[in-house]
Each structure stands twice: as C-alpha cells, then as structure tokens.
C-alpha cells in the first residue's frame, strides 16, 4: 500500500511541476467558468420564453388541444443536451400527445451548435491534460533507459501502473474542483438558477462521474504508453484515439443510424396522410340525388318530405362523424408510428455512440443533469399521464357543447330543402370555462430515476478502465528489460 502511495505522490509531484499542465489546467478552469456564464445567460432567455409560452398556452387551451410547456433544465451548465433545438412544448390532444415539428419556415437559421458545458470541457479538454501527463509514463522510461532501473526495484509492475493512473487523475482533480466551485459560486451569486439539495447531489454525482471518466481515459493512455517504445508514437496514438472517441465515433453513429434504421421520407409520410384524406373525402361526399329522389316523390306530403330529409341528414351526420373519427385515428396512428421511428433512430445512434467512452460519459452526464433526451423522454411520459386525465374531461365537454362546434362540409340544396355533409368539426373556438380542464401539474424530476439511468453508463466506463489497466499490466509485465 505504501508503495502505491509513493508512486501516486511521485506522479502528482511530477505533473504539478509541469508548467504545461498547470497552464492547461488554468485554461480548463477558465473554460468551465466561461461556459457556465454562457449557460446562465442562455437559461435566463429560456425561462423568459417559458413564461411567455405558459401564458399563451393558458389562453389557447381548447377542447381540441392543450399545449404543455417544458421548463428548461436548470443544470444545463453541466450538460446542455441540445436544449436549443428541442421543442419547448408538447401538444396534448384527446388520446394523443404530439411532438410538434414546426414549419421549416419558422426555424432559426443558426446551426444547432454544441454548448460549452461542463461535460464538454471534461470530455475534450481535461482528457487532453491526462494524455499530456501520462503518454510517456512507460514509453518515455523505455527511451531514457530508466525503465530497467525501475523494473529492478522491488516494486510490482501493477503497482507502478495503478499508482501512475491514480496519480494522474489526482493531479487533475484540483483543477476540476476549483473550476466547478468557481462556476457554482457564480451560479449562486447570480441567483437565476436555484441550486437546492437535489441539485447539489446531482453536481456531486457529476463530479464523481467525471473522475471516473478521467480514470478511464488515464487507463487507456497507460495501455497505449505500455504498448509503444517511443513517446512520440504513444502521444500520437493517444491523440488519434482521442479524436476517434470525441469525434469520429459519435459522428459515425449519427450518420449510420439513419442508414440502419431508416425512417419514411417526408414525401412518403405526406402520401400516407393524403391517402387518409382521400378516403375521408370519399366517405363524406354528398350528392343531390337522394335529396331529389325525396323531393320528387309525388306520394309524399310536405311534412313527410321534411321528415325524410331530416332522417337523411341524420344518417349522413352519423356516417360522416364515424368517417371523421376513423380519419383522425388513422392519421394519429401514422403520426405515432412516424414519431416512434424517429425516436428509435435517435436511440440507435445513442447506442452506437456508446462505443466511445466520451459519448458514454456525455450520455451519463445528461441523465445525471436531468437534461437532453433523457429529460425529454420523462417529460413526454408526464404528458401522457396528463393526456389520460384530459381526454375524458375534454370528450365530456365536447358532447355537452356539440351544438357550438364549428361544423363545415359540402352542402346540397334543392328548393327549400338543404342538406349538409360534415368534413370537419372544430372545437377550437367553442367558449367554455378553461378552469374545468385539468391543470398540468408540471414535471418533477426524479433524482433516483435520473441517477439510475446514469449508473448503467458508469458500469460501462468502469469496465473500460479495468479492462485497459488489465491489458496494460499484461503488456507491461511481458516487457523484457534485457
């Protein structure tokens, strides 16, 4: 145990005497703080937008649909998760929750850039510090010849590797803690983001996750260092692996997912809708022939004709309303299938990206911070729950206020008699007391669920770290000092 402590102490002192690492560490602290400032500014804009949306949603509540607004995640400075490009609300209809895809004409022209959040800084910049500190741990000693001396000492080779890895992570930890503390101080002083006990737990878990990720990186660097005999080669290999994990694998996942899990094109989806539309139109066509037949009946009195026309109108009304119900159900089915295919594609991309420890770390950070796709999924589940409460109330009110609904459709008339088909029934503008509709209670993040989701990723990173260290030990133990 004392030998490991000595190796750790030696590694830490070596790193702390390296001006490059100190400068890089200071730079990373600046990035953490700068990123937090940008996040705070972005968050306050999102809160304003949320307030405006909630107020609009209250005014726009109708028996057709209700908009429920997703509040921005407060810990987006830890992991933003592409919050700017995600929809800020969901549309709840009876028996359906829709993810709105706004008209392309109203999209922002700006690219959906990556925010400089903590997870980004740790996975890109802190890992570079680890690489710089550790790439020549074994390969450098091989070149200078001091490895022979080291191996002649009564120090197990495993101790050297484990001590070096731990020492490297311990020497980085102060920079991470200082950066996090400075950022948190800013957040608390600013006051726009409220940090309660749950948030503190999430921040602590994120910091532990970061240390685990950096350990994983350190193990991989140690493995590479033990495989090469020249420090230049091991540095290049480390940087190449870094580029592969940070850039190539996540990009390949996003490009490969649409190929492996294709989604119908917009045109194909529109064709499905148009097909349903045509079937509806065919079902709600009206013709003046039945009306003429009734009117032309000589044996019918005027009263009988009126009764017959009213019965025909009732029959049409029932048929057309049934056709409308079938149409809506069909269209919603297409929509649901389309949305789930899009989400499956995204989940597949996430799974492929897990090949990279950097992506695994970022996904875990998303879950722990309660942001990104994890947050969106849970908000959707809350919306579904609200939909189950909204549907019976809305349908009951619709029955009661049926006479106020805006009915439109083709008309036929002959003489004094008129018949109307029904091609749409809209409750958008029906006046009613909005307070009778159930109120969305909001979404309360569950700490245990979020942490549980991050835990699976933790196991994977721990596995990579152990596997790399074991392989490095195997490689190093086979090194023949002669």
């Amino acid at each position, binding site marked *: 145990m004392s030998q490991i402590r000595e190796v750790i102490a030696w590694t830490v002192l070596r790193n702390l005497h390296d001006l490059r690492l100190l400068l890089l560490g200071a730079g990373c602290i600046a990035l953490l703080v700068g990123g937090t400032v940008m996040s705070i500014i972005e968050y306050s804009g999102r809160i304003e937008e949320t307030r405006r949306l909630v107020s609009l949603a209250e005014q726009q509540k109708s028996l057709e649909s209700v908009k429920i607004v997703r509040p921005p995640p407060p810990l987006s400075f830890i992991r933003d998760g592409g919050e700017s490009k995600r929809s800020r609300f969901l549309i709840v209809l009876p028996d359906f929750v829709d993810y709105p895809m706004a008209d392309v004409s109203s999209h922002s022209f700006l690219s959906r850039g990556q925010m400089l959040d903590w997870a980004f800084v740790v996975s*890109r910049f802190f890992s570079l510090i680890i690489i710089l500190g550790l790439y020549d741990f074994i390969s450098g000693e091989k070149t200078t010849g001091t490895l022979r001396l080291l191996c002649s000492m009564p120090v197990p080779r495993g101790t050297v590797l484990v001590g070096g890895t731990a020492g490297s992570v311990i020497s980085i930890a102060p920079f991470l803690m200082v950066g996090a503390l400075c950022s948190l101080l800013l957040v608390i002083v600013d006051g726009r983001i409220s940090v309660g006990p749950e948030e503190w737990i999430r921040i602590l878990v994120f910091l532990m996750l970061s240390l685990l990720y950096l350990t994983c990186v350190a193990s991989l660097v140690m493995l590479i260092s033990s495989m090469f005999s020249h420090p230049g080669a091991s540095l290049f290999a480390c940087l190449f692996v870094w580029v592969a994990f940070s*850039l190539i694998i996540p990009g390949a996942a996003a490009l490969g997912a649409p190929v492996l899990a294709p989604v119908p094109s917009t045109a194909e989806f529109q064709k499905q809708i148009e097909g349903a539309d045509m079937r509806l139109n065919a079902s709600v066509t009206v013709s003046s022939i039945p009306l003429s037949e009734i009117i032309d009946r000589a044996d019918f009195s005027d009263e009988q004709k009126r009764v017959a026309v009213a019965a025909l109108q009732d029959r049409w009304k029932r048929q057309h309303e049934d056709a409308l119900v079938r149409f809506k159900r069909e269209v919603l089915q297409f929509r649901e299938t389309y949305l789930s295919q899009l989400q499956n594609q995204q989940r597949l991309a996430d799974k492929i990206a897990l090949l990279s420890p950097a992506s695994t770390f970022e996904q875990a950070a998303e879950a722990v911070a309660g942001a990104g*796709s994890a947050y969106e999924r849970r908000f959707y589940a809350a919306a579904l729950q609200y939909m189950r409460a909204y549907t019976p109330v809305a349908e009951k009110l619709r029955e009661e206020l049926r006479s106020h609904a805006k009915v439109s459709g083709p008309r036929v008339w002959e003489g004094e008699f008129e018949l109307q088909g029904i091609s749409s029934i809209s409750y958008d503008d029906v006046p009613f007391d909005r307070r009778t509709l159930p109120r969305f209670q909001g979404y309360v993040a569950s700490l245990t669920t979020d942490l549980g989701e991050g835990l699976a990723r933790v196991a994977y990173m721990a596995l990579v770290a152990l596997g790399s260290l074991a392989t490095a030990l195997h490689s190093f133990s086979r090194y023949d000092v002669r």
Partner: protein
Amino acid sequence: MLLAAAAQAPHTPSASYDPDPPSDGMGQRMRRRASIVLPIAIHRLRINVLTARWQLLSILLLALCGLSLLFSLRSYQKSRASYSADLTEHAIDCEPAKIHMYLQVQQALDRAPEPLWVLAPGTREEFGSCALVRGHFGATVIASREKSNPFLLDVAWGSMTQIVGVMGGLLAILLSADALSSGRQEGSLQMMLSEPVARWQVLIGEYLGGLFATALPLFLMWLVVLLVFGLHPDLGLDQTTSPILAVMFLLSLSYVSICVLAGLLISTRTSEPATSMTAGLLVWVLMCFVVPDSAVAIARYLRPVENLADLTARDVLAAISFGPKKDDGIPPEVKADNLRRRFDQTGLAAGLEMVSPLASYRQSCETLAGTDIMGHRRWLESVRRLEDDFVRWQKAKIRMYPQRVNHYLDDPPLDLDGLPRGAFSPQTLRSRASRVILPAAVLAVFNLLVFYLSYVSVVRYDPRFR
C-alpha cells in the same frame, strides 16, 4: 535532420560570405534561394510521408471522404427523386381539366437540388425547398421536401468540406506542430541555424514540406470527387461545376496552409514536441468547435429572435397536413419582421465565426455550392415575387369573372391566360464568385498573419537558450 537538409544547401566557405552578391541577377538569386529552400522542403516532406501518423491520418481522410460521398450522393439522389415527383404533381394540379374555379388555382415554386450540394450541404433544404402559393385565398405554405430527424444532433464532419476542414486541418496541424520543436529538443536546430541558411528560408522550407504532405491526400480526395462528378449520371462536369470544383480545391489548400502555418507558429514557441502537438490540438478544438459555437451563442444573445411556431398551438392534424392550412393568426408584417431579424442574427453569427479559419473556409464553400443562407434568401425573394404577381392576376380575374371564384362550373373552361409561373434558377458563376471574395480574402489574411507571426518568432529565436 534539419542539419542534414541545411547541409545540402550550397555552401561558400569564403571569409566574407554574401548569400546574395550584388553582381548576381534576379534569376540567379531566385535559383540560389530555391536551392536552399527546396532541400529543406523535400526533407520535411519525406519525413512526414514516412511517419505512421501521416499514413494513418491520410488513410482515415480518404476513407471518410469515400463514406461522405456515398452518404451525400444517396441523399442527393433522394432529393432529386422527390423534386421530380413534386414537379410532376404540381404540373398535374395545374391542368385546366382539373381546375373549375379560381379558388382551386395555386402555384408552386420548387427549388431544384444542385450537384454541388453533395460537397457542401450547408442549409440546403432545411428551411424550405417547395412553396405553394395560394395568393388571395390563403397564406403561402413553405415546406421542405426532406426534413432531418429533430431528435438527432448535427454531425461535425458529415460532408466533404467538413471533412477537409475538420480532419484535414487536424492532419496539417499535427504534421507541422513538431517541425521545429523536435529540432530544438534534439539540439539540431541550434546547429542548423549556425549554418549559412537564412531563418526565413528554413521557415519556408518547413512550410512547403508540411503543405505538400497535407496537400497530397487532399489532392487524392479531390481527384476522387472529380471522378465521381465526371462519371456519375446525376452529377456531371459542366462550365459551372468545373471551375467551382477547382476554386474549392484552391480554397481547401489555402485553409490547410493556415493550419500548417499555425502548427509551425506553435512549433516555434515551444521546446518540446509533446507540448507543441497538444497545443496544436487545442488550437484545432478552439477553431473547429469552440469559436463557431460561441459565435452562435453570442449572436443569439445579442440579436434574440422569438420562435413564431411557439405563438400558435395548432391542431396536430392541421400541422401535419401538407395541404392549405387555416391561418395561424400571425399578421404578415410580424412574420416579415421575424424573417428579417432571423437573417440579421445569422449574418452576425457568420461575421463573428469568421474568427475561425474553418468557418471562413466552410462559408466560402457553401457560397460556391449555393447552399449558404443567401441562397435560401434568393429563393424566398422569388417566392415573394411569385406571390405578388399571382395576387395581381387573381384580382384581375376575379374582377372579370366574379361568379367563378368559388362556384364549381364545368363549362366554359376557366380562363387561365396570363397565369404567372414560378421559376427559380441557380445563381450564376459570376454572382457566386463575387460573394466568395470576402471569405477567401479572410483566408488569405489569415495566411499572411500567421506566416508573419511565425517569421517573427523564428527570427527572434535565440539558439543559446532552449
């Protein structure tokens, strides 16, 4: 290693050595200088090409280029198929036999996919590629033939220009970052500087060597692109595409030249190759990710624009139907103002991100390919002109035939004389060239600036201190 290269330079052992005697002509001086610079350049090129990192990164670059072309071509072919289908459908909708009242008449303006979109997708169809104009009888509907998955985040390196920018830049920086620092560490730089070789010649030699080493895989990539364009039936090389491809190649050379010079600058300021390679990688991360993304965030903060879609809570059935929609209740002047502010916001972000050479390179390629935001603006202006012409035509016809507005009549056929047709043609070569001058000039300025800084750094280097 540098010493060996310098030793190949012609060496005059006279006591008062003048590298450029006044009696020599310009040609002789140039030849003498070239005979010093070239061996250094060739030596650096040989070193780079023989290293595993160059081979590995070049293979990676070529593999990514191949994959990118494959994905991009597939996407382009789908776009073209959708475009052709839309054109046919719109033509059928306009057939006189199908139209019986003026309420039914609508016009469409489709933006055709262009072959160069394969290389620099930019905004492409993201903000709209098909407009359905109803004029007097409803709002214009702008739709996109292909929409990206809103749940998937953008990819940093999916297209050819992105690969050159991101991976090509990485190759250039990593190859040149330890050019001088390795010599400094070994001590050979000090020995070499004691030879009668001017420092600027060393710098240019190293620069040319690094540039040739990076240009080689780039050249192969663009050769593949030329072959694909020449042989693929849906693409083709014509008098617009060929010069643009040539200019794109030159721009990519200009861009990697900046990266090589940046690597050399870092190399002149550091004494260890490890430090210079890591610093080079940091500069690459800042240039490729931090600066562009910060520019977007700053532009959003300085020029906030509300999302119009948030103002409505339209029924999902209406939202997903492609057909004419009921009015969303947003006044046209609000929409027009929102659009103007979105363009302003984008312009600000584009200006800010020019601080990064990668952004300037990407913007210039998108301008040449016609996939920049100005391309979309031109198309929207064509839609607006069609709207105005169409409304004027409708008003004239309604005045002449008021009973044919919304009454279905088979006979006589509807009078469609003078119906304005929508047409949108791609930008001319001259127009694209004039707009690419600014970002290309920015790249040139970066080249000069970084070269000057490297020169000053090399000239001020004191060999007595490591």
